[in-house]
């Protein structure tokens, strides 16, 4: 009980469902709800001793400011000066939380499993950027390689980064339906910006 690790209820893989059940939509870009992904919020200062090693042990690389380091099904993103978003396979999240808590023991930090608090979308295709240009006040032309951009998608908070032939976008679970609606609307055939 006193162990901080147990303060987070960790979910077994079986029966876990994403917010929307993975619908997809084909417009001028493809929209697909993916997940659930294992996601961890890590609050810690970057200069905490052993942080890079702790992430490395999970197959993750400590990102620079506003960057996300993606490797296979894992990623570590910079969310703020003392906040990181860690992505691991859903099945591994409880173990990752435990391991992280253990390796950062004695250092001021907070680890929280937020896998079920999020919905994740993949927007793909040559014009995937145009979907985001309609929803986010972010300069897509100036998005740097490996940049993680936290911003707004219409009326809700979102974060996205470039991945494969498109973008991965994360939002809160409760508004997954709204965001799917936004993405679908923005990707309507015939509404290409150019």
């Amino acid at each position, binding site marked *: 009980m006193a162990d901080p690790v147990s303060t987070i209820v960790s979910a077994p893989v079986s029966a876990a469902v994403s917010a929307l059940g993975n619908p997809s939509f084909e417009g001028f870009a493809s929209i697909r709800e993916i997940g659930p992904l294992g996601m961890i919020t890590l609050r810690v200062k970057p200069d905490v001793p052993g942080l890079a090693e702790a992430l490395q042990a999970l197959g993750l690389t400590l990102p620079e*400011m*506003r960057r996300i380091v993606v490797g296979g099904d894992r990623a570590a993103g910079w*969310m*703020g*000066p003392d906040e990181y978003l860690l992505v691991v396979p859903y099945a591994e999240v409880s173990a990752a939380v435990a391991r992280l808590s253990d390796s950062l023991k004695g250092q001021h930090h907070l680890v929280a499993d937020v896998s079920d608090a999020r919905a994740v979308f993949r927007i793909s295709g040559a014009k995937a950027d145009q979907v985001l240009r309609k929803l986010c006040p972010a300069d897509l032309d100036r998005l740097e390689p490996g940049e993680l951009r*936290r*911003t707004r998608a219409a009326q809700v908070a979102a974060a996205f980064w470039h991945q494969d032939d498109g973008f991965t976008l994360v939002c809160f679970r409760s508004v997954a339906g709204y965001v799917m609606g936004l993405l679908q609307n923005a990707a309507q055939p015939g509404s290409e910006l150019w």
Partner: protein
Amino acid sequence: MLTLECPYCGVMADETELTPGYEAHLKRFGPGSTDEEFEAYMFARKNPKGVHFERWRHAYGCGKWFLAARDTATLEVFGTYPAQSSAPPQALQDKIKAKRPDWKGYK
């Protein structure tokens, strides 16, 4: 529709990514303070026409509060800096003084 550079993440943020937090550099007065001190802390606001220091939060971005020095009349932004500052950085104060010689200081 303002645009302010978040000093924490370097994003030139659209006002719609931010939430306002009103006047900066207020000193908190808690129990033991006089009615006058408490009133000044809670209610007396400068509302100047000209140089003004204010709090903003990059709420839809990195989540951090920061401070901004702005001219309320021309909307020129002199600079932004972290919320963990008891006073505006000296370089910023010098810059403002150079641009607005009549400015009386941030206090």
